[in-house]
C-alpha cells in the first residue's frame, strides 16, 4: 500500500531557532547566499516566519511558523501549471516531486503556489574553494535558472529503500526515513510519518482538535499540518500565508 508522507508542526513548541533551515540547506546542498541575495531571492525550502499577536507591552507575544512545501494532495497547483511536467506527485509516497532536470525556469509554479514555498535559483551554485567536499553526495546541485522546493528529503527515502531492499524487505523502516528538518528540531516540534497509517504518531497528531492546515479553504489538501492551542497563532498563521504571497511582504 502506498504511503502519504506528511508532517505535523507544533507551533507551541517552535522557538524559531532556525536549526531546521540550516539543516535543510546543508542536507540538500543549497549553496551559500550570493552577496545580493535577500529574503525574496534566497533558497529556503524550509523558512521560519515570525508571527506577532499585534499587542504592545506585557501583552505582546510572538510565535514562529516554519513554512515549507505543503505537499498538496489535491489539485496540486504547481503540477497543473508546469509546461514541462517537471512537477509530479509520487504515487508511492505522495511527495510532490520537483525534477529540476526538466525545469525550464518559467516560474509558473512559483506564481501558482499559494504557500510561496518555491524558490528560483537566481545565481550559479558556488561554494568557497574546497567547500564542495562538504556536499551531500546523495543530492545533486541545482543549476542557475531552475525552480526548487522541499521534497521531504527524498534522497533519504531512497537510501531507506535501498537499505530495506538489501535486507530483503519490501517496506522501509520508518526510523530510516526522517527528513533533515525533523531530525534537527531541538524541541521535537516536527512529527513526520505516514498519514495513511492510523497508528502513526503523525496521523494521530494530524487528527487532534488542535491541528489545522494553511489555507484549508482552497482545497489543496496539504499534507503539512500545524498544531497549536493558542487561537491567535492559528489566526495569524493563515494571515501570514496570504501575506507572504503579496508583493508588499516580499521586502528586498
Amino acid at each position, binding site marked *: 500500500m502506498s504511503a502519504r508522507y506528511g508532517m505535523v508542526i507544533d507551533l507551541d513548541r517552535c522557538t524559531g531557532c532556525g536549526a531546521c533551515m540550516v539543516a535543510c540547506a546543508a542536507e540538500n546542498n543549497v549553496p551559500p547566499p550570493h552577496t545580493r541575495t535577500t529574503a525574496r531571492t534566497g533558497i529556503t525550502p524550509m523558512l521560519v516566519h515570525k508571527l506577532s499577536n499585534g499587542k504592545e507591552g506585557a501583552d505582546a*507575544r510572538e510565535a514562529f511558523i516554519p513554512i515549507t512545501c505543503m505537499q498538496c494532495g489535491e489539485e496540486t497547483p504547481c503540477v497543473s501549471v508546469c509546461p514541462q511536467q517537471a512537477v509530479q506527485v509520487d504515487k508511492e509516497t505522495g511527495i510532490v516531486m520537483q525534477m529540476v532536470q526538466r525545469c525550464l525556469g518559467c516560474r509558473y509554479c512559483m506564481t501558482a503556489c499559494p504557500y510561496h514555498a518555491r524558490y528560483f535559483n537566481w545565481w550559479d551554485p558556488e561554494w568557497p574553494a574546497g567547500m564542495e567536499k562538504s556536499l551531500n553526495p546523495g543530492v545533486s546541485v541545482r543549476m542557475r535558472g531552475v525552480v526548487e522546493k522541499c521534497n521531504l528529503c527524498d534522497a533519504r527515502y531512497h537510501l531507506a529503500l535501498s537499505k530495506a531492499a538489501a535486507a530483503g524487505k519490501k517496506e522501509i523502516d520508518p526510523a530510516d526515513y526522517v527528513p533533515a528538518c525533523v531530525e534537527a528540531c531541538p524541541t521535537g*516540534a516536527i512529527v513526520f510519518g505516514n498519514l495513511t497509517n492510523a497508528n502513526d504518531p503523525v496521523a494521530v497528531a494530524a487528527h487532534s482538535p488542535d491541528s489545522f492546515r494553511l489555507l484549508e479553504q482552497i482545497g489543496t489538501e496539504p499534507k503539512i499540518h500545524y498544531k497549536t492551542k493558542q487561537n491567535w497563532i492559528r489566526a495569524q498563521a493563515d494571515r501570514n500565508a496570504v501575506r507572504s504571497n503579496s508583493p508588499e511582504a516580499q521586502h528586498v
Partner: protein
Amino acid sequence: MKFSRRDLFIGGAGIAAGIVFTPVPWKLLGDTSIWTQNWPWIPQGAHGPVETKHSVCTLCAAGCGIRVRMAAGWPVGISGVATNPITKGALCPLGFAAQQLNWHPQRLREVRHGGRTASWAEAQAAFEKACGEGPVTIVDGRPGRAASSVLEAFAAKHAGDYRVLLDEETRALSPYAMWSGVSAAALGYDLENMQTIVSFGVPLLDGWGTPGRFTRLWSEKAAGAADPQLRLIQIEPGLSRTAARAWRWTAIHEGSGAALAAGLAQVLIQEHLVNGQGPAPPQMSLVDAAAQTGLSSDAIRELARTIVERRPVVAIAAGDEPAIAALNVVLGAVGTSGGIVLKSKPQGSQVQLEAGVGHRAMLLDSTVPWDFAPQTNAEVFRFAAWDGGNSKADWLLPSPGFAEELTDVPTASTSARETYAIAVNLVAQPGETKTAAQFLTNIDGTLPDVDKGIHARCEHLFESKAGTVHAEQATAVAKFESAAKMEEQLRQGAIWVGDPLKAGGLKCALKQWPAAANPAHAIDWTAAWQLPVFPPLAAKLYQESDLREAPGRRQA
C-alpha cells in the same frame, strides 16, 4: 510525375510542421535542459565510501554529541545523537553546517605576524625569546581538558601564569563559588527537577548552556500549556525569543535586574514566603525597587508570590550579578534538588584572567573566543582556526579546525552532573596547523602528551567505577571489562556521565545582602561563538530571512 523544386519546399514544410506534432521537439527540449544541469563546472561533492561516525562537537564548550556522515573521508552531514542523555539529539543551528567551516574563506592557513606571512619557526623563536625575557601568561578558554594540563604545565615550568577565561554561564555561578568556597566549575543547574525558573534575561531557549538540554525540557514540560509543569518566567526589557515563548514575561528597565531581585527578596522575607534562611533583607525598599525596575510595588509583590507557588524555584542570571545569586540563597535554591547543585567534588578555584596583565607575552589558546581582546601591553600569540578579523594579536597562529583535532571535552558549565567525552579528529590535521599544546611541546619536550592525558583520564574514570557510558546503549562503568574497552567507546563518540551527587553538599555563607554589580547583558549562541566566522549556511537565519539580526549589525 516530375518532382519539382516547389514539391521539395512543400515536403520540407510539411515535415517541419509534422515534427511539431511528434515528441521530438519536446524530447530535444528536455534533453537540452538535462544537459544544462550537468555542465562540468557545476560543483560536485566528493564521491567515495559513505560511513557514519560519532563524535562530540567542539565549536563551543557545551560538547553536544554529533553523528557525522562522511563521504570519501570528508564530513558531509551532521546531526545530533538521540541517545546522548544531555542533548537528546539537539544541536544549535551552527552545528548543522559545521562541516563547511574548514573551507571558510576566513580560515587561517598561515602564521601571520604584524599583517605579513611568517613561519612557525619564526613564531617559535619569538615565543622562546619572550619566555627568556620575562614571564608569560597562557590563557585557556576551556579548562579541564588534557590540553589544558599541557598549557598549565608549561606555565608552571617556565615561571609563567596559567589563567582561565570563564564563559558567561560559569561566570554566573561565581557568586556562589565566592560564598561557598567551591569552584564555579564544580557547580551546575539541576534543571530537570526545577518547577519554576525565574530567568533574568537569560536566553534559555536560544542556546544557553548546552543547546538542547533546556529546550527539550521546556518542550516536554512547558510548551503551549496554560499551567505547565515547568514555569518559565522571563524578566527582561525586550520581547526576546525566550520571552516570547515563556509562560510569563515581565518587562523591566534595562539593567534593573538587581533591584528587582532585592524587591522580590524583600517581599519573600516580609511575607514569610521563605523559611528565613539566607542573608539579612536588602536595604533597598520596595518602593525604590519599583522605581528602578519600572514595575509597581504591587506587581513585584504579585511576582514574588507567583514564583514560590511551584517549588523548587531558582533564579538564573545572565552574568555574575550577586543580587540574583542572593535571591537564590533566600529562596533556598542553593545546594538543593532543583536548584544550584554541586556536580563534582569541590575543587579549588581556578585563577581567572585579570585585566591589564603586564607580562612579557601572552599566549591565547584557540578556545579563547574572538571577541576577547586582551587589555595588555604584552606580545600576544593567538591560536585560531579562523581569522575573526578584529584580533589585536601580534602573532596569529593557525590551529586545527572542526573535527581536525583530538581533544577531550569535560563537563559543560551548566550541567548538573559531571560528564566526559572525547572528540577524535575525523579528518587529518592539516600540516600547516598546530595546537597550542603541540606548539609548547615543540619548545619543551618534557611536557605531558594530550593523547596520553586522555588515556590517563579514561583509566581514572574506569578505576572510580562510577557513572555510566552512554553510546547506543547505556553501560555502567563497573560493567566494563577494561579501561581500554571503555576508552574505545568514548573515542567512538560515547559520553561518560557521572552519578548525581547528593544534594546538600553546598552551603553559602552570606550574611549581608550584596551590593549590585555591573549589569550583564544576555548573550545567545550567535554571540558566544567566534564572530564573525559563521558557516555560510547560517546566513539563512539573517540574510535570507528576518529571523535574526545579521551578526555585524547586532554587534554594532
